[in-house]
């Protein structure tokens, strides 16, 4: 049934429909409505789950690792500083091969204290062994959260569903909320690969010496590779029931495009509007939406970008001393393709500044008029900064 829902509420509905059994959260800024709604569901009996209010995000993830190890489906949500505090435990969750699902609302890192949209918080966790799925609208947020459980439980790796602060988390729009029996058909009861069992006691995550550690890491690497294929299968199964499919990437008008924009999150919607603006004027421009960031869909990115003359990456994030993070990944993906196009990296919208169609249009004509990138990263929309000398 279609309802007008906030993005945060769409996540909560998906968690309810996934019949999550343990929710743990630290409810303070920069937390969002997601866990507020879930706490209401648990209190009112709308969900049959245990809700653990913990004293920090570090404890939150520790609690979920314990719960998931005992064989139940778990969930939490966090954001920016909260995710940063969780960092150590993110490694423990993936290393223990626990299919925990977390909603991560992309908010800027402090200081300056800023609760607005910025992707650096989640992208800084790219090496923790968590899958990362970036969403474009409220429907995709709901669908992806349900899909994330299916995928995570197949490959035994945790998954992060990532949504833009405010542009998604606080925005109401129509979202189709599926029936419970449809979701049950798609998402079977969780059957853990291993559980802590007092009747058959053993240790998890013990000391691992050099003779086994590397193999354990390789096993995670293989599971990540497998997740790329499994993601397509999960989407196929999902589409059969719900008639919706997103793809690890979506190539929008990329066929025959001279310039292709690479986008993620809600900037993709702005990119769609850019195409509506420019294509009728004869501009050969396309957009490549990246949904799946970990595992990174290298082959799909190569296919979509291989024939473009120029690639533009819009990054609402930055790795100091390097460049925009999506731009790094795109460069790495295509660098071994002979004759690959140059990659123009643009930094925009940090800390919640709007990325408008007009801004993307200015970038388009800047790139069209340049034979090669002037710099690794061009920051757009900057006001003049007076630097202390």
């Amino acid at each position, binding site marked *: 049934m279609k309802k007008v829902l906030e993005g945060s509420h769409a996540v909560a509905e998906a968690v309810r429909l996934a019949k999550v059994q343990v929710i743990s959260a630290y409810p303070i800024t920069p937390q969002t409505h997601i866990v507020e709604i879930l706490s209401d569901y648990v209190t009112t009996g709308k969900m049959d789950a245990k809700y653990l209010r913990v004293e920090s995000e570090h404890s939150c993830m520790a609690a979920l690792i314990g719960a998931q190890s005992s064989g139940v489906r778990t969930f939490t949500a966090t954001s920016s500083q909260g995710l940063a505090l969780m960092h150590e435990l993110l490694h423990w969750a993936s290393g223990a091969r626990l299919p925990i699902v977390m909603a991560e609302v992309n908010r800027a890192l402090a200081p300056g204290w800023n609760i607005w949209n910025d992707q650096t918080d989640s992208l800084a966790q790219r090496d923790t062994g968590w899958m990362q799925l970036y969403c474009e609208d409220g429907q995709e947020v709901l669908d992806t959260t349900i899909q994330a459980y299916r995928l995570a439980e197949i490959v035994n790796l945790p998954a992060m569903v990532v949504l833009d602060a405010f542009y998604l988390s606080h*925005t*109401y729009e129509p979202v189709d909320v599926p029936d419970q029996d449809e979701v049950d058909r798609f998402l079977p009861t969780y059957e853990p690969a291993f559980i802590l069992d007092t009747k058959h006691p053993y240790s998890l995550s013990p000391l691992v010496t050099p003779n086994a550690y590397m193999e354990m890491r390789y096993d995670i690497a293989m599971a990540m590779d497998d997740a790329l294929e499994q993601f397509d299968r999960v989407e196929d199964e999902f589409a059969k029931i719900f008639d919706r499919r997103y793809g690890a990437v979506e190539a929008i008008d990329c066929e025959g495009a001279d310039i292709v924009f690479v986008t993620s999150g809600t900037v993709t919607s702005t990119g769609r509007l850019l195409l509506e603006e420019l294509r009728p004027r004869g501009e050969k421009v396309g957009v490549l939406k990246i949904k799946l960031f970990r595992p990174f869909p290298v082959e799909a990115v190569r296919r979509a970008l291989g024939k473009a003359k120029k690639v533009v990456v819009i990054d609402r994030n930055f790795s100091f001393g390097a460049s925009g993070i999506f731009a790094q990944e795109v460069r790495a993906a295509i660098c071994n393709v002979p004759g690959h196009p140059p990659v123009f990296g643009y930094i925009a919208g940090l800390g919640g500044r709007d990325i408008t169609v007009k801004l993307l249009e200015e970038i388009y004509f800047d790139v069209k008029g340049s034979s090669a990138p002037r710099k690794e990263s061009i920051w757009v929309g900057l006001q003049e900064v007076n630097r202390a000398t």
Partner: protein
Amino acid sequence: MLEIRFHGRGGQGTVVATILLSKAFFQAGYQVQSFPFFGVERRGAPVEAYLRLDAKKILLRTNVTAPDHVVVQDQTLLQSIDVTRGLKPGGWILLNSPEDAADPGRFRGFKLACVDATRIALKHQLGTRTHPIVNTAMMGAFARMLGTPPMEAVCNAIREEVPSEPDANIAAAREAYEEVILIGEIL
């Protein structure tokens, strides 16, 4: 696409008004999007919230800077805020004010509508005597001003979403719908 900006103060139900109207418009067949000013909320402080309406899926996800219409839930805001900021020429301004207390001269080039939503809210005992909750009355006046959404959709949204006193809120919306004075273009 239509873009509407709502001004109010924290605690007056400004954000809720945009959510309820978005639900009413959706019920009436529109594609909708509503969101608060992206920031922090404080009781009594100026608040903004936004509503977008279109026939097709709304892809735009930026702040509203050039609204087609504006709703002002608290006329004391006029002393500190330019509610016409970015407002398109000829756009409606719906003001919570008795008609004789409004100063039309400051709204030249726009269309003005007045409704005494505070009196209506007090009459229906919505909120407290010092902090009446005017949002549902403003919704009724809004529906009359634009000729949409249908009052039935407004009443349904209130009945489904307002946790307390749905009947009094609906009565306030209906009364404001009847009482709003559409002064029209200020020359």
